[in-house]
């Protein structure tokens, strides 16, 4: 709305004035029909009403209604199709349900859009008029005309108004107004703040994260009773269904996981940790180990030997047996195959 040098004339009339006649006179005085506004405390029926520009309101409502149905379809049908969860044997997308929800959203969007259009239209029309005399509400009529400052139209219109019986005519120059936008939005922002804060509070409760029951590895840790043997005990050797590969492979795998860092990849006792230990880890290929039976190696694995810790808690009995067999195979003269390659 660039500031223009214009003048706004206000004429106050008695309620029983013939509005149509006044309007004709002003038009006759050279003012275009569009810039004459008749102000009244109540809607005047029939003739005095100005034509309304722009698309009729009911079209907006109908269009908004269709959009509303689309929104309803998305919410009820679209989401159900995206996250299909069976409930009560009912179809994932149930037509009557989608119908009801779409009906509601249609109404919602239609009414809200109609309202917003009305607000825009009302703002648009009354922004052209600058001044409103409080006495209109006490049973007076008023006519507001906007005329260019320069030129004789203003004087001609003022006369026509006095002739038509105006009680009081005023004129006011149109001022520049740009801060109204901020004026409008400031209170809205302050409204936003509490809502954002309230939203923040909600995400803070931790239902059922703190369980009364003891989760695994939660303090205080208890030990199993001495002497008792559970049904599927780890400490008792049992004939095992050969689920994984042969015993050698399992032994090798366990060796790689548990023993390599001290006894070295080949079992020579030169593992990466060896230099830092007080006593060097045993070389598994020396003859002392070769002389040991599988059971003895199994014993060392179970109880541990001087620096070496007991693996009773780490490995089950069968795992220790596989490991013992593998260690034995390391130091025993490997059965030389026909092609001379050693059997590791």
């Amino acid at each position, binding site marked *: 709305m660039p500031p223009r040098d214009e003048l706004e004339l206000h004429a106050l009339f008695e309620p029983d004035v013939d509005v149509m006649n006044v309007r004709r006179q002003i038009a006759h005085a050279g003012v275009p029909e569009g810039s004459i*506004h008749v102000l009244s405390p109540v809607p005047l029926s029939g003739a005095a009403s100005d034509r309304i520009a722009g698309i009729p309101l009911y079209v907006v409502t109908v269009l908004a209604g269709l959009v509303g149905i689309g929104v309803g379809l998305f919410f009820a049908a679209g989401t159900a199709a995206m996250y299909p969860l069976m409930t009560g044997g009912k179809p994932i997308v149930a037509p009557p349900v989608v119908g009801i929800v779409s009906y509601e959203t249609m109404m919602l969007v239609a009414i809200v859009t109609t309202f917003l259009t009305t607000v825009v239209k009302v703002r648009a029309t009354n922004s052209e008029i600058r001044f409103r005399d409080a006495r209109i509400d006490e049973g007076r009529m008023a006519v507001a005309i906007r005329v260019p400052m320069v030129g004789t139209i203003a004087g001609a219109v003022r006369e026509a108004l006095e002739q038509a019986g105006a009680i009081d005519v005023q004129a006011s120059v149109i001022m520049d107004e740009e801060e109204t936008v901020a004026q409008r939005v400031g209170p809205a922002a302050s409204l936003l703040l509490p809502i954002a804060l309230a939203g923040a509070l909600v995400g803070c409760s931790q239902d059922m994260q703190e369980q009364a029951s003891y989760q695994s590895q939660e303090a205080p840790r208890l030990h199993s009773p001495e002497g008792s043997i559970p049904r599927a005990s780890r400490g008792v050797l049992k004939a095992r269904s050969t689920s994984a590969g042969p015993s050698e492979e399992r032994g090798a795998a366990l060796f790689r996981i548990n023993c390599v860092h001290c006894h070295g990849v080949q079992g020579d006792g030169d593992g990466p940790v060896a230099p830092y230990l007080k006593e060097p880890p045993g070389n598994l290929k020396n003859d002392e180990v070769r002389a040991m039976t599988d059971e003895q190696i199994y014993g060392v694995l179970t109880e541990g030997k001087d620096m070496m810790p007991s693996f009773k808690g780490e490995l089950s009995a069968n795992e220790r047996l596989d490991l013992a067999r593998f260690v034995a195979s390391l130091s025993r003269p490997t059965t030389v195959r026909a092609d001379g390659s050693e059997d590791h």
Partner: protein
Amino acid sequence: MDTRHAVWNDMRGINRDLLAPLSEVSGRYLLLVACLAALVAAGAGAWLYQIETGIGQTNMHPPIFWSSYIASFVYWIGVSHSGTFISGVLRLTKAEWRRPVTRIAELMTIISVMIAGLCVFFHLGRVWRWYYLIPYPNQREIWPDFRSPLMWDATAVFTYATASTIYLYLPLIPDFALARDRVGGWRKPIYTLLSLGWKGSQREWETLNTAIRIITPLIVMVMISVHSIVGWDFGMSLVPGWHTSIIAPYFVVGAVHSGLGMVAIGLYVVRRTYGWEQYIRKEHFDKLGKLLVVTTLTLAYLYFADQLTVWYGKKPDEMAILHSMITGDYAVPFWAMIALIYIFPLALLTNPTFRAWPVGMLCMGIGINIGMYVERALIIVPPLTHPRLTYQWSQYFPSWIELTILTGALALAVLLYVLLSKFVPLISIWEEKEGRLHAAAR
């Protein structure tokens, strides 16, 4: 012609009368606000106690999972329909006597919808997780289940709340403009904002009237859909006594019936406190009484149809409920309800002198509302206390926590109404003027 002229001159008097409540604040008013605030505080305290310790503070137990909170929710939604029904239908039928009544009724609508929403929160077991009901995108890829009648409820009540706020606000714009020019102080900037710079030009009037003419039928349709959905909350279940096809129309008519009662109360109170005898005339009470007779007859017919089929059909699980109401544990509230919402209205409202007697209409309004509250409770509780497996039959009576919270909610409603009456002119000023002009023109 001179009467029209008299009307024009009298507009100043109308402004003065109808804007009077906005300006003076009497000692009695402050006392009323104080004690209402105390009641609301008690209710809020009881609610926090219930949230803190658990919803076990109520007297609910299996098989009774719904009780007084849902009964209050249905009651307040029912009362909220009065506003839309009266202003909507009366505007559609262009009944002249609607003018002073519409805004009083619409204000009730807004407030009771809010209280209804609040009752839902009282009812939730984990109320701090209410936002699971909102369809917001989340990484858990889970969404509210729109197949549940409660989600229809959520959508419908949200739509209804927004629509009725708009329907209240539109006719208020001219009155805000009028108030903007006459009331100073902290309310002036708010009025300025809310009046959208209203000047009263014919084009604005035309836009406003078309908007109201468009939204009126829509909001009546929304009103009917919302209370049918509230009815379907019960209709969709397998509970004997709830699963009936008549429940939707029955709820809608019930809503209007209790709504009209509440409007009658509103009219009498506003008229009595502000002395607006010549605005709210006996004629209004008479017309309201006529409407009440219509709703009473329809409601009686629907209720009789429902219970007749149960009684004649003699299905054991439904008969048990009927028995518990007619002769069993719930006989006293049942017969009190029958008297309050059917017998007294039919007996008294049919004779014109009673209808025109405001105090009578006040008592009738109060009676109908108490009766309808008990009726909602009797729709919910007896069927739940008599499930099909007789082993689980039980009893229920609200606990003191529930009663405190619900009285707090009622006090909050009245408090909001009383506070709003200081901010919004209770009778639509321009419609009053327009009405008088029309009357004078005839």
